[in-house]
């Protein structure tokens, strides 16, 4: 493309989507195919240092299509974005969100607020899901620089954006993950307690929902674990996730597959 210059009266401003439209680019449209919109489980919890996020890594079609899918990405240094639904649309969704936040920041020499980022996703979901039929549901969590706290936003299929003060889950494993979180959540969780609870929620989802993958000890692939604090977005190393899930596995093995009367 040539140099994209605009008159002041029709300048698309700092929004990448508005610019893409003005430049005549059409973002991908849906294909007629059967789609399961929720083959995934991602959870996010608030804790004393900010937010933790954990997601399974399985892509499900009629068979297991992928075992190492990344469903959480850093939208920027302080924001995590997670997706459930169509993998192709989800990847594009994340790419556009990342690019839009960075584009805005460079154009206006100022980052968007966390709430600004959360609201930005609403029309994206609306356009996507109304025209194509429920394809992607995201979740946004991050460190709010102005409020100095972690915040979590979830969405419904119509693009409605809801802030959660405790925890949020998306994907087909939601009933199992959510039950675990409901029983185990406290408002004064430390970061390591939150990580452990989130891992347990994903373990439960993986154990009960065929479209959610659990820890894969054979391939050394584990659910993705992320913390977002004042220091920013950090993906925890595989060793850490491996050790966390091995602990859960050993407890469950000892109690014959049951939680054993306690939340563990």
């Amino acid at each position, binding site marked *: *493309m*040539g*140099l*994209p*210059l605009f008159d002041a009266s029709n*300048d698309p401003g700092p929004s*990448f989507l508005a*610019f*893409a439209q003005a*430049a005549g*680019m059409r973002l991908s449209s849906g294909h007629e195919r059967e789609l399961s919109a929720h083959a995934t489980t991602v959870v996010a919890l608030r804790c004393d240092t900010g937010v933790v996020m954990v997601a399974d890594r399985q892509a499900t079609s009629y068979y297991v299509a992928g075992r190492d899918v990344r469903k959480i990405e850093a939208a920027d240094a302080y924001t995590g974005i997670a997706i459930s639904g169509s993998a192709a649309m989800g990847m594009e969704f994340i*790419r556009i969100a990342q*690019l839009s936040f*960075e*584009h805005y920041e*460079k*154009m206006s*020499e100022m980052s968007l607020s966390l709430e600004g980022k959360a609201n930005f996703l609403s029309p994206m979901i609306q356009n996507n899901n109304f025209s194509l039929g429920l394809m992607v549901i995201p979740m946004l969590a991050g460190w709010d620089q102005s409020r100095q706290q972690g915040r979590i936003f979830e969405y419904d299929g119509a693009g409605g954006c809801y802030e959660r003060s405790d925890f949020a889950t998306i994907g087909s494993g939601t009933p199992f993950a959510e039950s675990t979180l409901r029983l185990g959540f406290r408002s004064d969780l430390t970061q390591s307690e939150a990580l452990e609870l989130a891992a347990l929620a994903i373990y439960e989802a993986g154990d009960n929902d065929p479209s959610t993958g659990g820890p894969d000890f054979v391939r050394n692939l584990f659910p993705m674990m992320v913390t977002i604090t004042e220091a920013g977005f950090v993906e925890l190393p595989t060793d850490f996730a491996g050790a966390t899930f091995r602990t859960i596995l050993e407890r469950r093995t000892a109690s014959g597959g049951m939680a054993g009367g306690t939340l563990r």
Partner: protein
Amino acid sequence: MSNFYYVPPEQIMKDRAEFAQKGIARGRSIVAAIYDQGVVLVAENPSASLYKISELYDRLAFAGVGKYNEFDRLREAGIRWADMTGFTYSREDVEARALANYYAQHLGDTFSNGYKPLEVEVLVAQLGNETHPTKLYRIGYDGTIADEERFAVLGGDAESIRARFHQLSTDIATLSLTLQRAISALAGTGRNIATGDLEVAILEERGVRRTFRRLSEADVDSHRQ
């Protein structure tokens, strides 16, 4: 009936060049220089919010002198071009030379066909890696493009600043040294520029995708000592 006078094209070009040069000379200058770890861009700019230096992409920076509204529009176009190119292809396909050429074409076209030439000079700096070299492209008001070797000077008094910087720096040095030299080249003899009147940014590898970083007043002060 209006009279039509013949004006030789040499005269038209000369008038236009003079007009653009006068506009550019009203503003202050910028020095961009390669140092041992990256590229530093130094502008004399008393405003803390109307920037002359800006991030374009992961490894690209922009600098502009002259009329603010004119170079800011070029800056925006640069960011849009870079983000769209990176989105369409890949992040590593966003390269300084292509953008510098677009700027050169636009400035050249406006110089010869526009109502008036743009009163700006711009620079595209690129931090090199395994596949792309470190580059400084300076583009003049008439579309002249220059691939500067170690440093570039933009602005009204460019010739004398260039001479001063050239005299001060014969080699590729550390950030502190390069910054000090750039500041004294901008200031000239017998003048001191307060840190508050400087805008400084660098392109430097620091383990993250985006290499552009603005230096705070405290950062610049620590390098000036």
